[in-house]
């Protein structure tokens, strides 16, 4: 058995997939491409596919990663990538395969860069971002079925920017992933929208880059066992 890291984009209609739906899309793409995926042990075997960093519903991702264990009969990476691209749905596009080896790669995200457009008065949005930069701490209380958790967004959301547009502004920010977790992109965007007194609905949230720990060189970066489109 061999582990592959599949890089792919999620965009267009694929933005609106949940994390589980995205995993299902990747799994089904492998099945349609005729590339056998290894199965887990037990009563109900599952394909050995994992997406290490969920992408929020509504967001596009330009460089997402799936770890996939394939059986020895799987084709070579170049042929596999061609087959996967032909078999993928419109909103999910495989862009590269890195052959890792027998060891599960277990990629850990270090940070992820996002951009997002907010509609409304550009000046107010820019001011809200400037206020964020100026604040020493920005405490956010996250309420979930698991309970309440207070986190300082400043610990997690860094390198923030705001670029004025005709109708609103484009936010740029980096979410840092720490041992105790990370902020959600929506939490930062909601905060800026609240401070700027604009509609909180975000459009065009895009994850442009993820910095990983424990991942071999990416396709196209000169690695000998990688292929990319």
């Amino acid at each position, binding site marked *: 058995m061999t582990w592959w890291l599949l890089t792919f984009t999620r965009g267009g*209609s694929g933005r*609106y997939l949940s994390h589980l739906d995205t995993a299902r899309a990747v799994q089904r793409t492998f099945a349609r491409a005729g590339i056998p995926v290894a199965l887990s042990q037990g009563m109900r075997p599952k394909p050995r596919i994992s997406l290490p960093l969920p992408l929020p519903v509504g967001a*596009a991702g330009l460089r997402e990663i799936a770890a996939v264990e394939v059986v020895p009969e799987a084709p070579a990476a170049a042929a596999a990538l061609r087959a996967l691209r032909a078999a993928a749905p419109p*909103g999910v596009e495989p862009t590269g395969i890195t052959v890792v080896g027998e060891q599960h790669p277990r990629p850990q995200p270090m940070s992820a860069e996002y951009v997002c457009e907010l509609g409304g008065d550009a000046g107010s949005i820019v001011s809200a971002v400037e206020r964020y930069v100026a604040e020493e701490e920005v405490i956010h209380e996250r309420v979930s079925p698991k309970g309440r958790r207070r986190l300082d967004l400043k610990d997690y959301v860094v390198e923030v920017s705001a670029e004025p547009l005709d109708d609103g502004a484009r936010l740029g920010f980096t979410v840092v992933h720490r041992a105790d977790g990370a902020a959600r992109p929506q939490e930062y965007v909601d905060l800026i929208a609240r401070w700027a007194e604009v509609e909180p609905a975000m459009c065009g949230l*895009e994850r442009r880059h993820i910095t990983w720990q424990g991942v071999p060189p990416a396709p196209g970066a000169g690695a000998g066992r990688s292929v990319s489109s």
Partner: protein
Amino acid sequence: MTKHVPGSPGRCGDWPPDEVARLLARVSRPGRYAGGEFNTRDKAGARPRIVLSYPDAYEIGISNPALQILYSQINDDTHAAAERAYCPWPDMADGMRAAGVPLWSLETMTPVADCDLWGFTLPHELTATNVLEMLDLAGVPLRSEAREESDPIVLGGGPAVANPWPLAPYFDAFFVGEVEHRLEAIVAALGEASRPARLRRLGAVPGMWLPGTSGRPAVRQVFTAFSGTPPVLRPVVPVMEAVHDRAVIEVMRGCTAGCRFCQAGMWYRPVRERPVDLVVGAADRLLDETGCDEVSLLSLSSCDYSGVGEVLTRIRALRPGVRVSLPSLRIDSAAENLGGFAAGQRGSLTLAPEAGTQELRDAINKGIDEEQFEEAVRATFMGGFTGLKLYYMIGLPGETDDDVLGIVRMAATAARLAREIGRGRVRLSLAVSSYVPKAHTPFEREPFAGEATLTRRQRLLRDATPRGVRVSFHGVAASVVEATLARGGPGSDRLVEEAWRRGARFDGWTEHFRPDVWRAAAEATGAVLGEADVSDGTLPWESAVASGLTAAFLADERARGLRGELSPDCRDGSCLACGVCVGDVEMDLLR
């Protein structure tokens, strides 16, 4: 709204249109409205543009086989483009109204109202208000008489067309029966220069009924080439989770078992079977096209399909590890076939005894006996299934409290066998629905049991069900509405529209069904819920739909039912002269 083509990964931010993106950012399960499934067809710009709709939530509608047939055939075999739209969930509907965004199709994100033909498949009565909801969200005038040249022609089809009256004013036309061999004529009619000319030409297509225009009932159409025609080989496969996640092959159409309550059994006659080679080849291709690991052999009674054993064996040999499911099993044939079918299966199985005593089963022509029931239950557990659901109806004509308690006795038998064979690891459950008399069945003139009787019998059953057996009921109030619409005549549309205007929608969903709204609508329109004046004389649907079944056959079957007499299955050689097999319409069996 401008035109956009979905997909375009890597070019984020240019799709979908801004106004839609803002809506999608706020609603639950936005994937319902975004398209982008596997095997969608891209015929943007092609004319005529046909939008196909199933009036329910996306995850229900995407699993509907009829829509898959139409979508594939229109896109692949005609010059027309077929796109899809499903009923927006209430949160999205509210958002669309507030933002002034009209209903769009999933393929091109363009307004549905701009299409040439909007086809609805109408599965059952409880989707009626969703049809009005979708018309309204699209900005298409609700009533046919108010539509103008630029409005699409709204066409209804599917099993609920057996009685089109509750929705008659909202449709320009209804197609009665199986449409595969009439699609080209329908597409051709859309090429006429004006709306009146298009409707005139559509009205000339066999099987078409135009409310207020057609002078005679439409004759139900039968697709006689079914057996020799491959099933859908490249279905649209959802990326988000849907109710069914498997490849589907329709192996047989029609059923002649003759269950007297069953509208589908009467409506889809005669039986036609697809050859084993065609089915096995289709399974191989479908598994490649869909990426599914399960294939379902679809029909009204898949164990009755003559090739079931051979198909199971060959698919398992061809694709080891693939699960094969039979979604609809009759107990008598299941008892014979379950042994081979069940090998290596896991999960649960549903068997449908329908009624609790021999007398009542004979009355509905469900001629299984206790011995066959026990045999089927035994085969289920011995085959490795870990769950068994028994499906029953209450409120059948002539039913007594003892018949209801008979369900409990059968459940106790199944529980005993579960302990003996399944060694206690088996889940056993009862699913109990309320019988609703339907048009074109031998019981079409029988009274509906009514809310009080059904409620009392549900309580009786719940109190007597043995420990360890789960029992679930279909809501009585929803059945009352279903019964009202199933046999509603001209004017019953007023009840539907009044209920929709008061907020009724998604009536088939327990969390959305609002009995108070329907009661108020009935009071406002003078309708009496649960009642239908059909005991004597002409039935309302006879002026719109000719099913092919003769009145004499239906009357004879009704009389035999009330006497508790069984009728044979005509596939065994005993013709009951139901009237369906005329001209080139005949049974088409493998052997």
